[in-house]
């Protein structure tokens, strides 16, 4: 049996009273050794900030901290962050077990979410190695020590590589 899939619709502009939750962007508590900050901006095809996007970060395992409650001391594998008026987001997270984190973006004007990967360094990789150098660079965060910068360009020059599995 194969059931037809439910179509996607935009998250719209008015999710702010529903989807964000306290400390949603903090996958690890403040001051945890080894924590990193991942930050950046979401930009549209004119290079303008997208101030009403919602980003979700996934590390690949649920962890022990609680996804919605954030009451444990350890790591949560999931975080959520709505962009600010400048289109900026940030997460405080643990480093992933592998080379990348999974990032999903929702926004007004996006009829379906887009899914991408944030690589913390450029390295040989089955996905990266299949991309031309310009596109490859869109998946690699810049940064040093414990702060990484990763912009999401939805459209046009420098458009981020989005994935279809």
């Amino acid at each position, binding site marked *: 049996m194969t059931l037809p899939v439910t179509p996607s619709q935009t998250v719209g502009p008015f999710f702010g009273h529903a989807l964000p939750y306290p400390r949603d962007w903090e996958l690890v508590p403040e001051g945890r050794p080894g924590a990193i900050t991942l930050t950046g901006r979401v930009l549209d095809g004119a290079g303008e900030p997208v101030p*009403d996007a919602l980003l979700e970060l996934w590390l690949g395992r649920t962890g022990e901290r609680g996804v919605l409650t954030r009451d444990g001391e350890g790591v949560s594998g999931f975080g959520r962050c709505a962009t600010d008026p400048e289109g900026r987001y940030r997460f405080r997270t643990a480093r992933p077990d592998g080379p990348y984190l999974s990032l999903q973006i929702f926004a007004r004007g996006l009829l379906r979410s887009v899914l991408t990967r944030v690589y913390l360094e450029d390295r040989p990789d089955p996905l990266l190695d299949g991309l031309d150098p310009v596109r490859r660079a869109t998946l690699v965060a810049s940064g040093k020590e414990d702060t990484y910068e990763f912009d999401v360009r939805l*459209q046009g020059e420098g458009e981020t590589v989005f994935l279809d599995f």
Partner: protein
Amino acid sequence: MPHPPYLSPGYRSTVLRAPSQPPVAFKADPDAIELSSPVFGHQEVGSLDADLTRQHEGEPIGERIIVTGRVLDSGGRPVRGTLVEVWQANAAGRYAHAGDQHPAPLDPNFTGAGRCLTDDEGRYRFVTIKPGAYPWRNHPNAWRPAHIHFSVFGTAFTQRLVTQMYFPGDPLMPFDPIMQSIPDEAARRRLVSSYAHDVTEPEWALGYTFDVVLGRTPVES
């Protein structure tokens, strides 16, 4: 493909936000983290979170309704224990959101946000009030049909779905560029809930059903 194309110019906001390049098809290795999704604990979701009519001192204004259904994978198997989040406008068509400038009254007894985990049959259930239609500025005389936003997780991050549920018989559906961005009529119909008399509770609330079918995970395909 049941989903709308990213670029649907009738919905103006897509013009500068739709990716211009198709997504890169990638055969995930079995260790790809996108093949998993967060697992939620029952202690993380409050027992009243699924009743949007009991989140304040008084009762919200509007037509009380029950919305229930199942979250299934494309093989028809229930997706158990997954998080379903909903949000909506109040009965007057106004969101409890600072950005909503529609001159319709706010309801102090209605926030319009709820969540629950699906049970062992993949079933969710919300009690709420029927949302109102509202105007928006996409084009002259643009109105959104009444709808409830749904966010569903599934078992893989690739299955993550955000969509909107509509109500049967709503005359605004043919005029709505967001719903009409879905090219296939049968696919559009799957976003319309059904009135269900067996869900309706006598002298209490009208019942609607709405099932959500998530896409295949990469391992299934």
